[in-house]
């Protein structure tokens, strides 16, 4: 646990569940509060009216997200928030990988309802990336289990890293940045955010950075 204490502060609470120990530190508490706040106000927000412009002309009109589409994307936004809560509170590496995959799927869902071929094409590319990146993500988990005999972060924190664990750390990073559409896999994300529906798009950006912040902690813990 010493690495967790040195990284994230003292343990505020934990649920003793064999060697799978979900725990709460000041860092994970800050993440939980941030995700809850964002999920609530993004869910309550109405989509914006996007001003359509043409060069040498004044604003020529506005358009927004249809009600049916908005309802589905709002549901995906809530689901993404729930998956993110799992990502930041879990103390088990396999659960972490599962929740990160769920974040990827819900992000894809947020854009699946958009009726714009550019956005749908980008979402398709992103779907391919998250499918491919699930291999290094779960591969990293499998190698860690095979090498150390545990997936509990509390136990992993006291096991010294060796070359195989370092490989699994690298695989976990690749998996997480792929699922979160982070650099260098962010090209599709830039196309996807052309879609209307600010609250839902914002959730995708939030999920990317929260997954990234959490993976940093996990990589350090596994050291």
């Amino acid at each position: 646990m010493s690495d967790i204490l040195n990284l994230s502060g003292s343990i505020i609470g934990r649920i003793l569940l064999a060697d799978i120990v979900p725990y709460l530190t000041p860092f994970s508490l800050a993440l939980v509060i941030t995700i809850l706040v964002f999920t609530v106000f993004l869910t309550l927000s109405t989509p914006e009216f996007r001003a359509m412009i043409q060069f040498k002309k004044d604003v020529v009109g506005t358009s927004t997200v249809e009600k049916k589409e908005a309802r589905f994307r709002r549901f995906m936004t809530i689901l993404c928030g729930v998956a993110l809560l799992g990502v930041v509170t879990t103390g088990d590496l396999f659960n972490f990988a599962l929740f990160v995959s769920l974040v990827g799927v819900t992000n894809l869902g947020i854009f699946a309802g958009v009726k714009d071929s550019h956005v749908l094409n980008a979402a398709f590319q992103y779907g391919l990336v998250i499918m491919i990146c699930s291999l290094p993500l779960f591969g990293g988990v499998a190698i860690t289990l095979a090498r150390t005999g545990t997936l509990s972060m509390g136990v992993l924190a006291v096991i010294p890293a060796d070359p195989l664990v370092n490989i699994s750390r690298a695989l976990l990073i690749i998996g997480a940045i792929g699922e979160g559409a982070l650099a260098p896999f962010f090209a599709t994300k830039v196309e996807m955010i052309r879609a209307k529906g600010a609250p839902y798009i914002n959730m995708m950006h939030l999920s990317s950075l929260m997954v990234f912040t959490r993976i940093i902690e996990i990589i350090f813990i596994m050291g």
Partner: protein
Amino acid sequence: MIYPATNSMLYLFLEIITASLFAGLLLGLHRKVIARIQRRPGPPLIQYMLHTLKFFIKELTIPDTSSMPLYVAIALALAGAWVLAFLVGPVLLGPYIIIIMCYAVHKVSEHGIGLATGSPYAKFGSSRAVLSATSEMPLVVAPALVFVRTNSLILQDIINYQIINGSLVNQLPLAALATFILVITKTPFNPFGIVYGKDIISGFKTEHFGVIRGVLMFGETLAFFVLLWCFLVIFFGGVINTPLTILLAMIGVTFILGFICALTPMVAPYHSVMIQWIFALLAIANVLLI
């Protein structure tokens, strides 16, 4: 440590306000330095502070096209994130990883602020915010190197390590340089400020007025203070660890930032990303060399 930790909410509130006002003065000094280099008299030192305060008494207008309550809430989220970072950093000397999280919330907020208005100009700014988020590798690389060296990311532990072993800038000079680049990116008129480029009006803030703009500027002022403080304490903590030395160092670094911002043009968006990645890679090379 600049501020004593306390349980009094009123005292904490005063700490936040004084930090924001001091950072406002620093940003005023920064503008003055730029002006003097360009042989202009420049605005008075309190100009940035007055500019922020002015918005708190201006009329609040909300575009009809905006996404509500996102339009208001996201601006509060940006300011709230930096208040949290201030409390965790200078006040409590707690986990640095929470400040990294606050920085991530800042980037999400920049994106959301631009999108929530429905304005295409603001959207340009928010798209650049997404692009610039990919370039902030120094934010992650530098703490990783500090953790490898000190085995802790608790700010108090990092300071204690430096008091015993000397400042980290001597051991990780390129990591310090990478973090300094990060401080530059949060300074007005900086060469990497693609989010605020004049070619896109006021970037993501184009459609924000009145008290909401004031809150945004307050958050950005606090962000400058916290990042500058973190840079000084994490890499010069062996020497700069008393309130007076920190304040003097902040003024000194602001002078240097003024020179950099006055003498360098704004780079193109992709170059901005590339340059910041190069500095992050240099920081990694630093560890391999040692």
